């Protein structure tokens, strides 16, 4: 029993697990094999409130706290990493910045459709020459009357193939360096807005990751989020929250791998006994379980820190760093327990292993997070 969760948290997790067991788990392997985004399930997830977990009820959201948000993402990711990715990115780095930095008019215009999953959101920061160094953004937004004329080439956009509402990071003041970047809400269908080919990725294949290109795309000035030049601050705030989601996603994938590893170890017999009874395998199970639990505790702590209203950059960075690396270790051990079968696409652990890999890369690499954590710790211990 997880003593850090209250009754409501547990009820949310149980309910989402039941939903996922019914609607997502049975098709997860085929979504991966076919690289398909399941609109038929996404519609149900929208009705269940999974696309507006923390949006206010008056804007059609579910009004839940960050702990609930993390639990929802963990459970969806336990069934399908690619859909967990869709939901966490949509909630944290697409919807949250509109809620936190948007005007009343912007919230009323964008949030209800996003919170109910009628529209999918995307966060368009990464460019061919701007990744870990977000200040290297080369996209431009030039004022022209009551519009910005935006030219941007955004790559590796999660949800890119299906997103209707895209937060575009672009330079509105090229001379101002880091303080010259702004965020504009661009909508699919606008002239000059185009979606590139879907990326053929190793994992997370249910998610339509693509490039998004804006060519002389006219975005109304009323779609500017926050103030001109506030882009990087908005992006970093969004990523602080987003990292809790990615960490929760990593925990969900690791949990699934732990369950499959244990199930297989109890069932597979070698040397006349289930391999779970062999010491080397049981040691792996112990290590897997410890890492999953430790990662989950870090995620819950980060979520609680956010709900408490104080700073949580260090907590979310620690959770993301540890959980993503734990997911790498745990899925690797699950493959090892499965032996040759674990390397076969017939078995789910092979998918978990591929899905887990990218959690150490996106929304800040492990290397960036070590820098963030080290900086915070050294400031604290001065």
């Amino acid at each position, binding site marked *: 029993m997880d003593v850090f969760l209250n009754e409501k948290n547990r009820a949310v997790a149980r309910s989402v697990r039941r939903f996922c067991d019914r609607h997502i788990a049975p098709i997860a392997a085929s979504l991966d094999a076919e690289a398909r985004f399941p609109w038929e399930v996404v519609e149900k997830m929208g009705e*269940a409130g999974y696309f507006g977990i923390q949006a206010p*009820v008056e804007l059609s959201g579910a009004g839940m706290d960050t702990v609930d948000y993390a639990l929802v993402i963990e459970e969806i990711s336990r069934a399908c990493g690619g859909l967990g990715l869709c939901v966490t990115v949509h909630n944290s780095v697409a919807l949250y910045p509109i809620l936190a930095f948007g005007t009343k008019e912007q919230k009323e215009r964008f949030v209800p459709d996003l919170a109910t999953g009628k529209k999918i959101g995307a966060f368009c920061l990464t460019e061919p020459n701007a990744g870990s160094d977000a200040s290297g953004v080369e996209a431009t937004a030039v004022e022209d009357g009551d519009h910005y004329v935006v030219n941007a080439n955004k790559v590796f956009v999660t949800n890119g193939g299906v997103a209707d509402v895209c937060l575009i990071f672009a330079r509105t003041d090229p001379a101002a360096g880091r303080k010259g970047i702004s965020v504009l809400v661009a909508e699919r269908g606008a002239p000059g807005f185009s979606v590139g080919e879907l990326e053929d990725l190793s994992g997370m294949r249910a998610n339509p990751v693509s490039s998004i290109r804006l060519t002389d795309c006219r975005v109304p000035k009323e779609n500017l989020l926050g103030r001109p030049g506030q882009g990087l601050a908005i992006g970093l705030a969004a990523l602080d929250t987003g990292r809790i989601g990615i960490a929760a996603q990593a925990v969900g994938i690791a949990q699934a791998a732990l369950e499959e590893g244990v199930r297989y170890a109890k069932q597979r017999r070698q040397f006349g006994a289930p391999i779970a009874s062999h010491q080397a395998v049981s040691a792996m199970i112990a290590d897997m379980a410890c890492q999953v639990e430790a990662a989950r505790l870090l995620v819950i702590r980060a979520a609680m820190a956010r709900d408490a209203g104080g700073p949580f950059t260090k907590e979310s960075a620690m959770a993301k760093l540890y959980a993503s690396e734990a997911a790498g270790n745990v899925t690797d051990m699950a493959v090892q327990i499965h032996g040759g079968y674990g390397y076969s696409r*017939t078995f789910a652990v092979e998918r978990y292993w591929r899905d887990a890999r990218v959690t150490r890369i996106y929304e800040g690499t492990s290397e960036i997070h070590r820098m963030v954590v080290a900086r915070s710790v050294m400031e604290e211990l001065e």
Partner: protein
Amino acid sequence: MRVAVCVKSVVSKEPKNVKGPFVPRSPDQCVLNPFDRPAVGLARELAGETGEVCAVSMGPQTAMGALREALALGADRGVLLCDPALAGSDTLATSRALAAAAKRLSPLDLVVFGTRSADSDTGHVPPQTAVLLGLPLVSWVVSAKISQGVLSALRAADGFEEKVRAPLPAVVTVHPKVPAPEEPGLADLDAAFDKKPLTCWDLAALGVSPGQAGQAGSPTTVLSMARTKAGRSCELLEGSGRDQARELVRRLKDKGLL
């Protein structure tokens, strides 16, 4: 329309190392009896948007979770019949408590139950409650409608279907083949915890004497519980038909049977 739906909290995992007849319960291992899910759904459907559905359960505080699930699935309010003197109730003593709650909730048009519980599986409580309330019982209902104070129901039994009519108020048990309502959304869960009322009634509130409740009021006693050994096991394969066939062939090959 005023409807009471009687629900039970059951343990979600097989109890381990149980000594004696009682299963230890903790909140994270108690869930709404799965057979009660369609009952809550039908109760909501028959009550309509303007009617009131009250979920009732007898049990310790851990049963609150099952009531919250019933609230999330559509009940408007919940009542937990909770008193140390109720511990150890057999099906008759349970039926007395539920009948007393139904009387306190009256006037009611319907009292709805799932067909049975996933743990003790007796199926005794709905008919006993109907007898104690002096109400007609329509069991194993697969669909129902209400018109001018009369219940018209279709019940399934043993390969046949019966059309049944009964005056209201009545007691109904809902067949397990009735689809359970869709999993509640997050907003429904939020309402179940933070908005919808949930109250506790003790023996005094029910007007049941201690001699009629709990072990004291139970003519039957469970002496022990032990797992029986199944002669064979069954595992369901998942995935598409093609995936299942492929997996089946692989397993048979693994065992050297093909």
